[in-house]
């Protein structure tokens, strides 16, 4: 089998573009994990909610998917805050088993609740100007993926500025470094928790909105993305938000290149194996601090 340099190059571009979507879901997971020390197994399902919201806004009200980004973020932010108040708050100090089973219960409720409401159907969203294709020499770049990539950079930059420049952002980072010390410095820790959870799932919903422009929308679409998000967060160093962005792109590239060289079905096996190897060899990840 001969694989030309051109197809390798397009695989690289493809990987970077899809990886930026993975990153959005994973950054939210990393934020929640870092600040609350809770693993949110339902992370991908908030992404699915964002995708459905975008779909219905476009179909029913004709709202452009790009304009629905703030709406998608805001709606899922509120749902995240409700989840945090109703469920996560009660399990923060619970044993590990209860934490895992409670967020798994949230996963089952959102995923299959959405399936009951929307029906077990696959939907597609086609927007004419997003369906165009750009050509750069031998490399073909679909418009929708390029837009998704650019938006993910903007979202990451905004998140970066928020965490570095604003009082709330600095307080969030303080809580993630040391919960007790932050509390003693007068930071309202429980307020930081619901903000973190809301933002964490809200970013994931933006990923869903972008994904909706080129990926089939289905209530169970999150299964695969949640697993990838875990791989990315662990790979990037747990709790490291920007490590998650970079490693999302690395995982995206790994997948598209292994799809080219091995087989499209086994590309995920490569990512999962990489995950197990990373937690065995360097559990703090590529960009994580040694503890």
């Amino acid at each position, binding site marked *: 089998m001969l694989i030309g340099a051109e197809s390798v190059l397009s695989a690289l571009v493809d990987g970077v573009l899809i990886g930026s979507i993975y990153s959005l879901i994973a950054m939210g997971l990393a934020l929640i994990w870092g600040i609350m020390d809770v693993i949110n197994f339902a992370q991908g399902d908030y992404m699915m909610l964002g995708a459905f919201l975008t779909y219905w806004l476009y179909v029913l009200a004709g709202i452009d998917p790009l304009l629905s980004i703030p709406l998608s973020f805001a709606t899922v932010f509120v749902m995240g805050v409700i989840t945090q108040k109703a469920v996560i708050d009660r399990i923060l100090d619970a044993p590990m*088993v209860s934490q895992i089973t*409670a967020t798994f219960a949230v*996963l089952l409720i959102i995923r299959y609740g959405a399936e009951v409401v929307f029906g077990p159907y696959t939907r597609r969203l086609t927007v004419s100007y997003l369906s165009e294709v750009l050509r750069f020499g031998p490399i073909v770049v679909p418009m929708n993926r390029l837009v998704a990539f650019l938006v993910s950079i903007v979202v990451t930059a905004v998140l970066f500025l928020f965490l570095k420049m604003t009082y709330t952002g600095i307080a969030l980072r303080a809580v993630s470094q040391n919960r007790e010390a932050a509390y003693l410095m007068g930071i309202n820790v429980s307020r930081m928790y619901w903000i973190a959870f809301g933002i964490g799932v809200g970013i994931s919903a933006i990923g869903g909105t972008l994904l909706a422009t080129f990926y089939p929308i289905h209530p169970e679409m999150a299964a695969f993305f949640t697993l990838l998000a875990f791989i990315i967060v662990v790979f990037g160093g747990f709790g490291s938000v920007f490590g998650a962005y970079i490693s999302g792109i690395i995982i995206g590239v790994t997948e598209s290149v292994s799809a080219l060289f091995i087989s499209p079905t086994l590309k995920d096996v490569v990512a999962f194996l990489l995950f197990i190897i990373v937690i065995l060899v360097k559990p703090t990840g590529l960009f994580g601090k040694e503890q």
Partner: protein
Amino acid sequence: MNLLINAIRKNLNYLILVSVILLIAPAAFMKLNLPFPANALFLCLMYAIMAMAWNLLAGYGGQLSIGHAVFFGVGAYTTMILMLYYQVTPWVGIFVGGFVAAITGLALGIPLFRLRSHWFTLATIAVGEIFKLVFITWEWVGGSRGLQPPIAKSDWEALYFIQYAGPYVYVYIALGVLALELLVLYLVVNSKIGFYLQAIREDEDAAMSLGVNPFNYKMVAMFISAFFTGMGGGLYTIRFRFVDPFAVFDLITISVYITVAGIVGGIYSFIGPVVGSFVFVPVSEYVRAQIVSRFPRFYGLHVFVLGVLLLIISLIAPDGIMGWLEKKGVVKRRVAIPVEEVE
């Protein structure tokens, strides 16, 4: 052995009552032609077998696996392949399936048991997905199409390949497997292995400093746990006569359902997972058969109901139904609950 005889003597009345009910029920269902409750009973027993096995690792050893579909799938495929390619009777195949699953468990345990708490859980999920993807692409085992055994042509073949109409016969076989498993597990958890596992769950470093090798005892628990989960897979093969990677390696309907059974019943109780299975399977099966089958538009409702059940239990009674009954003083506590949970 004395331990076992004592335990049986102490609970003789309950044991006789439950055994008589379980032995008569399938025959009664067959006489009255009620396949639905008989099928639900079979699924209760199948999930009880797997959840009991899972709980040796999760409840006693503190190693929460959400990847037990691996052992279920390996057991199911081994039984099927032996039957289909080598004409080996499933009467033997189910045990071989359990054994192959147990060996798989040992092989996976070598890397996985280097991980602690949620890292272990995350890795088991990833391993489950790897097995599913590999079996989808592996043509020798049927790939994504799955495998189906030939249809028995005579009474003798029906007995040899265990092919009978309806769920009734399979309920008795599952009862036999569960009885064997309860016997083995009762002896294991009341031997030093059971106490060492609980010590490891409480504080791995402390256990190590007292001369308990955590790795060795986790491997023993993994072997037994994977063995009986694999036998559960063999039961699935003979009952449903169709094995495909999407069904047997499914994260939700196998790995998560086993966890739900354990959590609902109570993982810090010997019999908890059985109780959990007999609570959650009938609920889920009833919703599936009565609502989802009639109105396919509402597919997913049976899993949604489980999510609600799991959430309520996780928030209100994290020690499950048996833990709650123990707290109320209805049932005597036999297994130590983790120190961090004692107020």
